[in-house]
């Protein structure tokens, strides 16, 4: 079993520690610091997020997405064809993002995540996985003023993001995580999704994980198993019905399961026993050596202290699980 985080990490520490990122962002807005100075603060905070994941004992980490304003604009701002519009609610959370608008053909121009990945890898003793928002989700959360159909828009984004994955290939990451939460709300779009995944992964050599959250994949799990992903990530907190899907349909023997068990959106800390019982139940369907245990989603929904506690709990559970099986 491997422990992992799933994406974001809180950018500021709990009070009374000063929120350096937050005050730097304010200063940047007021023009009191330069973008380069802000970038240095992001560097420091990224190192902090890496250090906390490493201290917590995770096997595979992310850079905490400290530089992401949100999962949509981080990509859309760096591609051509998009403008950025007003605030929208992000799924059923109390978190908001600025909505990208496709005004013309969308295209990849330059690497988006590569520099950030290099930085994180340099500063982490543990393996790091870059995260990329998937084409389907990016399209669903954007406005389309250019393409004739959602399908065309999704496919154009898949081709653009394929170049991003190829650029990451050159860095030989241990795994690249592609986030596609939006497909859970639209299982009817599976054919479109399949086509997009084919375009997205064409010629990509790195192992790629598909991560979903904020719901269950009951109607999709069998189809996910046919797609060339190394890991399939499911949310067992908001999507407790993923248990039904898993137990009814089983899980492909040549894939890993991203087991998003610890609720990333609630401060209540799961007990070690509770998680061990869930792992025991899971082991009847998926051998634990093919499980990536993690939180149910990115951890930026939580205050820093609570986020760290969730990660520490992952390692405690892993140790306890090893003792049980010994």
């Amino acid at each position: 079993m491997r422990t992992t985080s799933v994406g974001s990490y809180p950018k500021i520490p709990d009070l009374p520690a000063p929120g350096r990122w937050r005050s730097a962002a304010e200063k940047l807005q007021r023009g009191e610091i330069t973008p380069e100075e802000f970038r240095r603060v992001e560097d420091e905070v990224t190192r902090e997020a890496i250090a906390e994941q490493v201290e917590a004992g995770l096997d595979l980490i992310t850079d905490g997405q400290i530089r992401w304003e949100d999962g949509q604009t981080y990509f859309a701002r760096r591609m051509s064809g998009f403008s950025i519009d007003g605030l929208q609610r992000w799924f059923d959370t109390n978190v908001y993002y600025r909505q990208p608008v496709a005004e013309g053909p969308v295209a990849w121009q330059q690497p988006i995540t590569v520099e950030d990945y290099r930085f994180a890898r340099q500063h982490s003793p543990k393996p790091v996985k870059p995260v990329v928002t998937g084409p389907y989700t990016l399209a669903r959360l954007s406005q389309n003023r250019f393409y004739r159909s959602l399908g065309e828009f999704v496919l154009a984004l898949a081709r653009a993001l394929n170049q991003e994955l190829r650029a990451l290939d050159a860095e030989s990451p241990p795994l690249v995580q592609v986030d596609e939460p939006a497909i859970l709300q639209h299982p009817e779009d599976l054919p479109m999704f399949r086509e997009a995944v084919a375009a997205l992964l064409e010629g990509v050599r790195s192992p790629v994980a598909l991560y979903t959250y904020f719901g269950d994949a009951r109607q999709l799990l069998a189809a996910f198993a046919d797609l060339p992903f190394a890991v399939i990530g499911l949310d067992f907190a908001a999507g407790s019905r993923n248990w039904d899907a898993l137990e009814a349909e089983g899980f492909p023997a040549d894939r890993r399961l991203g087991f998003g068990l610890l609720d990333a959106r609630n401060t209540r800390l799961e007990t070690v026993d509770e998680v061990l019982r869930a792992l025991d139940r899971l082991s009847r369907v998926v051998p634990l050596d093919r499980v990536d245990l993690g939180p149910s989603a990115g951890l930026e929904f939580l205050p820093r202290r609570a986020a760290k506690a969730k990660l520490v709990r992952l390692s405690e559970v892993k140790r306890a699980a090893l003792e049980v099986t010994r």
Partner: protein
Amino acid sequence: MSELPLFPTTTVGSFPKPSYLLEARRKWLRGQIERGALRELEQQATREWIQRQEELGLDVLVDGEMYRGDMVAYFADELEGFAIAGLVRSYGNRYYPKPVVTGPVGRKGPITVGWFRFAQSLTGKPVKGMLTGPYTIAEWSFNEYYPTRRELVMELARAIHEEAVDLERAGARFIQIDEPAIHTRPDEDFDLAREALEVVVDGLSAYTITHVCYGDVPRIYPKMLDLPVQQIDLALKNEDFALLEVFRRHPFTKDIGLGVVDAHSHRAESPEEVLDGIRRSLEVFEPRQVYVSPDCGLKTRTIEETVAKLRAMVEGARRARDELGPRA
């Protein structure tokens, strides 16, 4: 409410805090001033807002929420069973203190009643009692205590009900229960939110209102009309009255709090724009159904922007009244 004119004007609840109060709140958080000193400034700011609303000619006033940080944390602070978990980012560099339920929730005593009495004592116009609804308080808090969301929401409903009853006893003839989170999980949770609101308003004779914003209103329409309140207040202006199309397909059977000025733009609308919004809305509402209001609370605007928007709103409503002439 026979003494109200046609198209009564009102607001959604919050107004911007004057700079002396923001400064005092910062000092109070750092322990540099006493609670009593802060309260005096909150009262001063409340007086100023009551006076401004009277000068502007609004019909149903609010206390402006000078003593509230945000609409959920304020109630969490005052109720039993909550703590503040910490700061959570909502977007950009905006953070808010998110409450966490750590034990059984309940009311220690009246929460807003003292402020209601204070504000009402300053004016002959009716002042609205302003509450945050149980579903929204639950949805925007962490929950470490109740095994299910339902249990938490229903327990909160009982607490907010007690507060509503006390507001009515204190003389509130209008009580607004805000539920901006009501459409978060429209399929899964709408009935729960409605049931909770039924508990809140049970036995009240006051005119009840709920405010809903920032989300997919069409998803909960027309079942939204089952909410047990007389008026639903909605943001129409920021989507250029697109919701009217939805109401055209299925008639809106309650009074409407018609949002005619955008709460999140700097620009003040003109009276003509407000009048035009009211006219357009009369294609789907009867005149008697319409209360005129901003889209949302105005606390993120400056005082000058707020006054300019409200002046245009009141003037637009007056012109609409004149236009309808004798029918008013």
